[in-house]
């Protein structure tokens, strides 16, 4: 197959959205624009198609589905979908990647290892659909070694058959056996803290603020809502931290080298209420958020991660950026109602101020 289905992140940009999926395209765009993004590569949606076709996975799934009947709008049928998901994922994950593809993926992974200067570096394999479905597909963290990388790419593909994805497709009357997505393979950041930031105050839509949430360990803890993060509200223009709420974070989400699994580890009591970021990190994140917003031209929702081994400010990585979905989509309407300064002055002169609540 002559067509290209794998890319270094710096080779893609927003215009490749439909080819590599949104997350990969955005990460590529950030990389190209000079932001500090963990090195990585992207498997395009064509890689998915090729895998499904060449290994005849599609056919086998279609065959399985021949006898499958369920109503996605009937909650009681959820169990049927769960069973189907389990069966289909077993089918897919048992299939080996075609060997030429496998070699190429391994080659790209080795390139990342070389770049990092060590063998078997840890990477994350993340799903990247052409349209954004946050949290629908799956992501595998701390994957290491060529074989594991290849296997986990397949696992991400297979996650298009998880229960919620199948039901979602069934509800939209879309084919159940086929949902091409891209996969991002990203070098893991050994995160001491990570989280999310919005380039708008999500509470009231104030675009002069950046709202940052972070916690100890990997960012999944914040995104999934499994810990109560520290919160900062920073003024974009004066670069001032205007509000800070240091929470009892309880756990940190970390990698356990013994079990090779990610897990929530309870924080020692004296660390639970320690703020997870230094002020200079908060301000640097704010500067980055402003730049990202400026680059993309609309309010952004940015995921970030801070390495425990690199010195500030190289320690700060951006690991995702997408348009903020609430305020960014609101139609911009006039709040001042086309008034002149004089008209507003006359209006102000007529309005008394309430003194007592």
């Amino acid at each position: 197959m002559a067509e290209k289905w794998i890319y270094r992140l710096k080779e893609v940009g927003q215009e490749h959205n439909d080819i590599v999926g949104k997350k990969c395209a955005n990460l590529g765009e950030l990389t190209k624009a000079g932001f500090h993004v963990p090195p990585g590569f992207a498997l395009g949606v064509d890689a998915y198609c090729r895998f499904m076709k060449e290994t005849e996975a599609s056919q086998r799934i279609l065959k399985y589905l021949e006898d499958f009947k369920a109503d996605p709008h009937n909650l009681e049928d959820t169990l049927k979908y769960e069973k189907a998901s389990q069966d289909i994922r077993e089918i897919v994950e048992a299939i080996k990647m075609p060997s030429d593809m496998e070699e190429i993926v391994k080659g790209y992974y080795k390139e990342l290892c070389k770049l990092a200067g060590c063998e078997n570096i840890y990477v994350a394999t993340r799903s990247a659909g052409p349209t954004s479905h946050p949290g629908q597909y799956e992501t595998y963290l701390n994957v290491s070694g060529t074989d594991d990388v290849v296997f986990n790419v397949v696992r991400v593909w297979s996650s298009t058959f998880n229960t919620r994805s199948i039901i979602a497709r069934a509800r939209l009357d879309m084919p159940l056996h086929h949902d091409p997505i891209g996969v991002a393979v990203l070098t893991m950041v050994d995160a001491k803290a990570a989280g999310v930031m919005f380039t708008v105050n999500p509470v009231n839509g104030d675009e002069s603020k950046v709202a940052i949430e972070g916690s100890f360990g990997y960012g999944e803890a914040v995104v999934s809502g499994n810990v109560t993060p520290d919160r900062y509200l920073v003024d974009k223009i004066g670069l001032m931290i205007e509000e800070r709420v240091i929470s009892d974070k309880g756990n940190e989400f970390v990698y356990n080298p013994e079990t090779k699994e990610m897990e929530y580890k309870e924080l020692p009591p004296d660390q639970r209420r320690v703020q997870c970021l230094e002020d200079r990190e908060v301000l640097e994140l704010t500067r980055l958020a402003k730049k990202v917003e400026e680059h993309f031209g609309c309010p952004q929702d940015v995921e970030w991660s801070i390495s425990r081994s690199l010195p500030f400010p190289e320690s700060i990585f951006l690991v995702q950026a997408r348009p903020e979905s609430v305020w960014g989509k609101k139609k911009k309407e006039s709040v001042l109602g086309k008034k002149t300064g004089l008209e507003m002055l006359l209006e102000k002169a007529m309005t008394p101020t309430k003194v007592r609540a």
Partner: protein
Amino acid sequence: MGETKGFPYAEEVKLPPEMAGWEEMYPPHRLFSKDRDDWEKRHFWYQDKIHDPEALYPLDDIFNEAWQIALSQYTTRVFCIPPAQGVQQRMLGCYMYISAVEPPPPEVIGEKAEVFGKRLPYVLQNYDMLWGKWIEKFKALGKDMQSLKVPEELVKYVPDEDIFPVTKGYTPAYEVIAAFNTLVNQIFLGWQYHFEYLNLAYLAYLMFVDTAKKLFPGIKESTVMGMVAGVDAAMFRPDQELCRLSRLAVAQRPVGDILKKDISADEKIKELKGTEAGRVWLEELEKIKDPWFFASCASGWFHYEGSWVTKMDVPFSYMEGYVKRLEKGEKIERSLEDITKERERVVAEYKKLIKVEDDRKSFEDAYSAVRTIYQFTENHIFWVENWLHTIWFDKVRKFGDLLVKYNVLKKTDDIFLFNRFEIPMILEDLVTAWALGVGAPTRSKYWMEKAEKREKILEAARNWVPLPGLGIPPEEVSEPFTVMLWGITSEKVGEWLKGADLSGNEIKGFASSAGVAEGPARVIKLAKDIVNLKPGEVLVCPSTNPSWAPVFTKIKAAVTDIGGLTCHASIVSREYGLPSVTGTGVATSMIKTGDIIKVDGTAGVVMIVKRAGA
């Protein structure tokens, strides 16, 4: 607000017995009174801590009399801010309480709206021309006051030139009486001018805050103020002149060396006169002394504060600091260019964030309206409270001297113990005795005893803590000064009702200049102690004044008891990029010199991190 509905009424307030007789120090219409009981109880009164944090000497109360009229009339009779009325005053136990008068009836609001709609645009459109006229007439008024002749003595026989070739027709007896009346008229006129555009300027500011908050709900008022504040206002000039003189001194070695000496300003001036370079430098000082050394050492509201010209040790101690820092190669001036650039950046960035074209236009228009007229708030302060008040105090003391000379009063400043209606009586007593001829007595014993008694009453008043409010807080206020200058908000009234808690470690106030800084506190209650301030300390004081500007290059942060976002401490802190929290009400009582405090000017919170000696 829980069960407490309000504060006691004036009549329910118990004063210490040592204050008995305080009422006679102030004119009767300035006191709470049974005959206006219903009206007074309908209003909520709060102590004016901004202008009169201290027990008031009767003559210093004249500025209040003058502003009660001036402030109110521009709202009610001149520019006619529709739903607002004046701000009324009452004295209670030597402290002044004020209250926004309840709104007028609806038909009056309608009438006023018509007048306001016609007059406001005119002022905005012609402000530059109007300001030109204002400064011209104000300077003329000050010159008139300066040239007012107060007889230094009552001559035994009027001189021949009062007879030949044409008899003058009147004597120093008349001159004394007339001069005091003129002086009073002049200070009243000055205060009429003081408010000429101030109400509109505050209104424009409040409008701009609203506009900015509609667009950016989380914007801090200190940020808005930073966009509006002027850079080159008259109130900064005294400090600029000190910087310039200090540079001249450094360039002329002997001058710089003399300025650094640990001797009084008088001795320094004497030494300077002894050298050629010193004489040249003193000439330079003399050229700018009037008006720029007519800066009050504190607020300008009290006779005992003094001004640079009357307390030369103050500007000389500032220059001593500047000279030392210049010699170390430090920069002492505010960088007007940097401040202007930063302000332009901030405004441009906010504008860029406004995505709706119409809103951006409205914002720009609102901004240009407020920028046009807001300068008045920053310029009038120097000319009225500093320059004109300095001249006033000087002239009043001439009458004090005269009364001391003829044994009617013991000390010059005892004249301030009498109100402006009583002083003509004392003066009349004096000139009557002179006119009656040799041996005719004055009632000097009566006046002297009165002065002595009043000094004691004031002493007792200083030791008494007045209530922050009287009566029931209102639902709403439309009077722009009440909201902006005195910062009367529901939170503030609520805090007052709870009563100040002096035991904690956290003090809240206005977030008036953003940033965070930590350092040892220096509590300065009296202006003269300002010289004790050391570099790196945090200034904690009742309120500050433009003449304190040199101090702001030394300190890490500023905290005040009194003042909102427009007070001097706020403006100057923003200019110098220092965090400041103003209007805390209690900072000087809770914080002790040497305590380590953390000032968060972004949140408006001061934390006592470590107590001195702890």
